[in-house]
């Protein structure tokens, strides 16, 4: 007779749970004008104690809040250059978030992100410098130009395949760069528009109060981008797009059941482009100038490196990647070209070992662990080891 060993199936013993009063009905906050809730609370009865337990099913908002709060509290105590780096980080992170919306949510592989930022930044700066519009209008002109640029760029996206579209947008960026550097009226400044009016008073520019003000603005920009991300991804639009996440067949299926998939994609693209336009206007104001470098391939690759290191298609990936790369690129300027090599090395290692960037490592490890435990179970059971349904996770196999 064989001795049977029983294995304990553990269910997150480390997880903190609230124990609400069982008699009181649950009162949940809703986002205004929507049916969505701020946090994903889940109630369940503990089968052993028969007590009501409440846990937070999605803890990301919690981490976001803690992280952003810590960031905003700590930054004012840093040195001037660190505050600048923090502000640049906010700007880059916003651009990356919006880019992630385009690439991840809308599934349009566009490389014209910086081109949209640049075009709107230039238009906004020009409206201020050459037409004399006061600075608050920059924040209006930027999104408007972004909207137009996005609409124009969105048109061919339904016709072209991913890679071809990516190339087309890269070409657009290059055309913008060449065009701006050719402009004879900007020759004096090498194609840059300088002395743009700003929300930062002239006397404070690049000094302590001005830097903090600039940082505050940049931080608001980041919050705005996060809000847009959240709204798009949790609203109808995001749900629509998620029905066809994985591929061409799904897309065809979505179209077949009456979801106007293309329209949803284009809407996200144009929305993000408008927001990118706002970032462009902000960029021109923050530095009081904008240079053709914003259209350059190097700059684009740097931003791409951020997204890749963090994890393509994830909000936290865009932000974490931006933090790492900005810190290395702008913080370690003393070590010279080595820092770029460092960024490349990080990119290389992360991509070889992590399939979805740094922020995907946790999920990847969990998948790995699940697969392993499934295999072990298969080995120790006599009957071939049927996988438990909850373990039958999608494993990306070729």
């Amino acid at each position, binding site marked *: 007779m064989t001795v049977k060993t029983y294995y304990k199936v553990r269910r997150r013993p480390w997880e903190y749970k609230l124990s609400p009063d069982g008699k009181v009905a649950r009162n949940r906050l809703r986002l205004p004008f929507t049916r969505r809730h701020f946090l994903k609370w889940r109630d369940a009865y503990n089968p052993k104690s028969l007590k009501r337990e409440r846990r937070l099913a999605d803890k990301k908002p919690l981490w976001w809040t803690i992280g952003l709060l810590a960031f905003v509290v700590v930054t004012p105590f840093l040195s001037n250059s660190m505050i600048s780096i923090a502000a640049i980080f906010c700007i880059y992170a916003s651009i990356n978030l919006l880019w992630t919306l385009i690439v991840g949510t809308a599934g349009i592989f566009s490389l014209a992100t910086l081109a949209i930022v640049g075009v709107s930044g230039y238009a906004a700066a020009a409206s201020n410098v050459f037409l004399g519009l006061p600075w608050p209008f920059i924040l209006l002109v930027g999104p408007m130009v972004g909207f137009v640029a996005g609409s124009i760029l969105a048109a*061919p996206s339904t*016709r*072209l*395949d991913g*890679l*071809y579209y990516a*190339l*087309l947008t*890269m*070409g*657009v960026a*290059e*055309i913008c760069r*060449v*065009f701006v550097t*050719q402009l004879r009226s900007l020759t004096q400044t090498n194609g840059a528009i300088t002395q743009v009016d700003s929300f930062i008073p002239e006397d404070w520019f690049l000094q302590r109060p001005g830097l903090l003000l600039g940082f505050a603005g940049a931080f608001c920009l980041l919050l705005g981008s996060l809000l847009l991300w959240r709204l798009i991804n949790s609203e109808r639009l995001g749900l629509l797009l998620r029905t066809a996440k994985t591929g061409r067949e799904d897309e065809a299926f979505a179209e077949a059941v009456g979801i106007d998939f293309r329209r949803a994609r284009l809407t996200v693209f144009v929305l993000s482009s408008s927001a990118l336009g706002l970032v462009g206007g902000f960029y021109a104001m923050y530095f009081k100038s904008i240079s053709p470098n914003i259209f350059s*391939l190097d700059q684009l*690759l740097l931003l*791409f*490196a951020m997204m*890749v290191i963090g994890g*393509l298609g994830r909000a936290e990936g865009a932000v974490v990647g931006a933090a790492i790369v900005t810190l290395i690129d702008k913080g370690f300027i003393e070590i*010279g*070209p*080595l820092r*770029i*090599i460092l*960024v*490349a*090395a990080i*990119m*290389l290692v992360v*991509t*070889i070992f992590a*399939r*979805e960037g740094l922020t995907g490592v946790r999920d990847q490890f969990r998948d790995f662990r699940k697969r392993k435990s499934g295999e072990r179970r298969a080995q120790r059971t006599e009957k071939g080891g049927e996988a438990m349904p909850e373990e039958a996770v999608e494993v*990306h196999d*070729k």
Partner: protein
Amino acid sequence: MDLGLIIYALNLASIYALMAIGISILWSSVGMINMAHGATFATSGYAAWFVSGALKPAIAATFGKTVMASVMMASVVMLSAVLAGAFCGAVIYALAFLPIHDKPNYSVRSLIITLALNIGVVQSLLWYFGPRNRGLPKVFGFGRWELLDTKIRYDQAGTIVGASLVMILTLAWLRYSRRGLEVRAMMQNAEGAAYSGISRQATALPVLMLTGALAGVAAALLSQTIFVSPTAGVIPLVKGLTIALLGGLGSVSGAVAAAILIGFLEAIVGVIPFLGQRYVMFATFSFIILVLIFRPRGIGGLLDNTRE
């Protein structure tokens, strides 16, 4: 349009074609967009410079100032560039293909890895060799011919003939050799190739080395006109990529056709008085965008069947 302009256009086209067919073959057989092609280009240039510099005294001592010496020098330059290119291909194979070729998101991840390699190698070259450009020994010597009232520089003629020769050899290899047949089979259907006993791992290495060697040839040839520098690969990479796409990524004949098209376009835009050199890039990209809008799969689909 006179002969001089045609020569100039062909000169551009042959360099672009060398880069573009490398990118095209690689995409269609191994499924990789090789962003490190520019780094391969730059590395090959430096290798040719370094080796030819190191062997110069030895060659001068053995052959003196004879024709043999320049032939030796030329072959050293070409050979070292080709070998360095092939070596870069092997490195790309080891880093961007082997570890991940059967893992999820392979095509995006290999693109990212090669991109990282490109950035890293270019900066390392800058860091190690410094910013100064380097000149290679003139493979084709100084001078020019007069042909039908047109002056043709040796290096122009050499580049056109050399590049065409290399391309014909590559295409012949693809068409007639057994390895070439395997590569073509893999270009068209990777799973079917596996069922025919064609291993992806075993075939990818020679393909990567071949495309690297092509970039090496392009580097040695282009460095006859301009010089070797860490960022020398950027323009050939961008041009090669765009031309490969214009040719309908994956179609070798499409890439060659697109290279010739762009070569002539650039030459012609350059001499139109109100456009001139400063609108060359502008015109090229506008043209490619227009073509892609009307023919979303480039011009290659007109010529042959490519991998979907």
